[in-house]
């Protein structure tokens, strides 16, 4: 579609980009040649167009020469298109009348022959002139924002993000799949480097979440599906049947006493048992019992019924079912946490075979006062107090061959903590840590590690353990001290393996439903590894905590607050703007064949059955152009990238 009959006055600004462009392309000649090109009302060149004077030049020239459109021949549009669009706006020009001709990445950076590179630059610019002539002035699409956030995951990151967003004044839905919030942090005994009791510092936050007027706490819920787009997500949530009314349960515990069924206690990492009707831990929030149908004798039909009989408050209801409901939110924070690499993977350590070869979380439960041993260090097999404990770092991490190539970041610190706490509880015991490096990058971290070595007299041996096997009562650990060049063997009573941090179990399914991208290890992919750590490339999704990669609690909290701040940024705007360079439907030409619908990766197009033509959701459309390429009738034409424009560009490039 032509803009209007009047010939546009196009201004051309050719950038030197220092020597990046000018070193290969004769920019002065280009500007000179283009002066006489039809449509070009003004042509100049300058050293750095993106600089303040450069931009000022653009603004002044637009006003002086009454330009309708400008072309900046410079670097890739991904870098400065926005810069020049903003400059043009200041001069009163519609930002979609700006064209960026890339003569750097596409020309000066890839060619050596100066003469040919200069000719190519001219061709490129000519093609943009052809396009610019037909560009329309466009207005950004405005989108409403639903100022309500969804936080998935009730660990420390999810809790922090929820609190911060709620403190801003916005409504938050906090969805947690387990019966209580708390995540992994609530399972810890003490945290490094302060040795704060983990539950003591976390439960106040958990209580705050439960009491906050802006937070709707949905535990034992899961996200079923998400549709929509930033500012306007429709989330389908599943409420799992707890079989207990939270509001009625008074935690008297009578049900638990009479329940005949036992199950491994997940909170204690399987080191002890719980009943089928249970509370995960004393400070659980919400404070209520939950009936685990899987381990119950049977609910359909009811085979036991003892718990219901003894419940004074009539809080138990066997007829509860799964419920689904929908909520609208404007942004989603994903804080789904992590899991530890499976012990089964390290056959050479006998971790599957031997009860006394355990992972870090199991040791945390042993150390914890609320754990299966009441805080006494006893080994799982026979309850004896281990006098010789070996700690092995880097189990399944830093391994490019069979396991995970990355470093899990927290193991060096928590191993030092474990060794230190063991020595505090068993002063006549001996602790050995086998390490390759000791990584203590945080505040007060190295000092903490030095205390472990100097004050608590833990022996650090530099060498990776090759094999662990059992002989009689002892676990024989084959290691090496690379510093003295000696192969060493330790007869241990118990071995604690610092297993790698991996993606949370089952998170793949959830992320597929959310259509959020991950990296090759299954951790959430951030938009830019250095400059955008809490946003996903998928607009509207924010990342917090170990779901994005291994990190410790201070970092997780910082990231959660950062994600909350980004949500705040979003909600602070009156409305969202979406790029108008989308692909509308020309209903005169559209035959309703539907090919474009199948091409669209954003589900932006659908069939209007009444009218027999395709319609497009302008906010979902990202302007990729796949539909435009596929459309047989030409009804799908991308704004400012029409077929007519593209052919005009080709003609210009080929010398026409």
């Amino acid at each position, binding site marked *: 579609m032509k803009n209007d009959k009047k010939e546009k006055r196009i201004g051309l600004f050719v950038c030197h980009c220092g020597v990046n462009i000018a070193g290969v392309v004769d920019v002065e000649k280009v500007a000179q040649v283009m002066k006489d090109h039809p449509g070009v009302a003004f042509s100049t060149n300058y050293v750095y167009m993106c600089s303040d004077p450069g931009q000022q030049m653009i603004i002044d020239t637009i006003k002086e020469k009454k330009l309708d459109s400008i072309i900046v021949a410079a670097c890739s549009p991904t870098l400065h298109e926005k810069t020049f669009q903003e400059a043009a706006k200041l001069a009163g020009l519609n930002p979609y009348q700006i064209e960026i001709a890339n003569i750097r990445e596409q020309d000066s950076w890839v060619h050596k022959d100066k003469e040919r590179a200069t000719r190519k630059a001219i061709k490129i610019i000519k093609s943009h002139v052809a396009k610019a002539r037909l560009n329309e002035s466009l207005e950004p699409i405005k989108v409403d924002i639903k100022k309500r956030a969804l936080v998935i995951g009730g660990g420390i990151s999810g809790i922090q993000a929820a609190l911060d967003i709620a403190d801003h004044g916005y409504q938050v839905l906090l969805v947690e799949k387990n019966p209580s919030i708390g995540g992994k942090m609530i399972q810890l005994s003490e945290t490094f480097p302060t040795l704060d009791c983990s539950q003591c510092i976390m439960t106040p936050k958990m209580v705050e979440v439960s009491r906050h007027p802006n937070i709707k706490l949905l535990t034992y819920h899961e996200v079923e599906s998400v549709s929509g787009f930033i500012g306007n997500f429709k989330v389908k949530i599943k409420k799992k049947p707890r079989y207990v009314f939270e509001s009625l349960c008074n935690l008297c515990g009578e049900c638990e006493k009479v329940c005949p069924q036992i199950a491994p206690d997940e909170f204690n990492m399987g080191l002890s048992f719980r009943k089928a009707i249970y509370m995960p831990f004393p400070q659980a929030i919400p404070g209520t019992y939950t009936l685990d149908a899987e381990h119950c004798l049977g609910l359909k039909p009811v085979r036991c019924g003892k718990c219901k009989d003894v419940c004074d408050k009539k809080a138990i209801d066997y007829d509860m079912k799964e419920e689904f409901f929908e909520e609208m939110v404007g942004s989603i924070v994903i804080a789904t946490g992590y899991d530890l690499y499976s012990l089964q993977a390290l056959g*050479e350590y006998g971790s599957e075979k031997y009860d006394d070869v355990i992972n870090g979380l199991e040791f945390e439960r042993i150390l914890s006062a609320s754990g299966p041993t009441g805080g006494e260090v006893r080994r799982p097999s026979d309850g004896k107090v281990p006098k010789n404990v070996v700690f092995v770092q*880097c189990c399944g991490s*830093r*391994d*490019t*061959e*069979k*396991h995970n190539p990355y470093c899990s970041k927290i193991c060096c610190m928590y191993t030092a903590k474990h060794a230190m706490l063991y020595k505090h509880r068993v002063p006549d015991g001996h602790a050995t840590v086998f390490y*390759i490096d000791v990584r203590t990058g945080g505040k007060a971290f190295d000092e903490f590690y030095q205390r472990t070595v100097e004050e608590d007299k833990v022996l650090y041996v*530099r*060498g*990776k*353990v*090759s*094999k662990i096997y059992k002989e009689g009562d002892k676990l024989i650990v*084959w*290691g*090496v*001290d*690379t510093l003295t*060049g*000696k*192969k*060493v063997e330790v007869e241990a009573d118990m071995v604690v393996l610092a297993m790698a941090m991996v993606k949370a179990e089952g998170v793949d399914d959830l992320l597929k439903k959310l259509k959020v991208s991950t990296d090759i290890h299954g951790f959430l992919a951030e938009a830019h590894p250095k400059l955008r750590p809490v946003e996903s490339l998928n607009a509207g999704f924010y990342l917090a905590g170990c779901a994005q990669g291994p990190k410790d609690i201070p970092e997780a909290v910082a990231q959660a607050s950062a994600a909350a701040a980004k949500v705040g940024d979003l909600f602070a705007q009156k409305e969202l703007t979406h790029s108008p360079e989308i692909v509308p439907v020309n209903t005169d030409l559209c035959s309703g064949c539907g090919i474009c619908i199948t091409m669209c990766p954003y589900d932006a197009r659908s069939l209007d059955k009444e009218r027999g033509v395709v319609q497009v959701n302008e906010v979902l459309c990202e302007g990729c152009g796949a539909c435009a390429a596929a459309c047989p009738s030409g009804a799908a034409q991308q704004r400012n990238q029409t077929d007519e424009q593209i052919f005009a560009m080709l003609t210009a490039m080929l010398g026409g």
Partner: protein
Amino acid sequence: MRVKLKAGAEESKFIERIEELSGENVYACYQCGRCSAGCPVAFEMDLLPNQIIRLVQMGLKDEVLNSKTLSICASCFTCQSRCPKGIDMARVMEAVRHVLDPKSRDIFGPSDVSPELAIELPQQVLVAVFRKFSK
């Protein structure tokens, strides 16, 4: 004893030759020591397997020259099966043997086996040990 770490042509040639012969990237080793920890005969060695590859990394050819370790490796591949970087230490060991023992002498040869013993031994072990250690 002062060891000069020269990054000279001789050192590079040595390292390159080892990599060429073994097909392994010696720089990938981050000295975790797992090879030495699992080696069944390390207790007899003067230099541990991880120390051998360390000296290669540093180009210190002379340091490995007289090590007994080279003739103690049993080629059992435990090192290779446990290395987190996938380095085949057995191949590196063999490459070092080749570079440092240029066909001039036997580490262990026919003259080291008495005729009485030779009759008693299974053939495979004679073939194996001479293949490894004799010129």
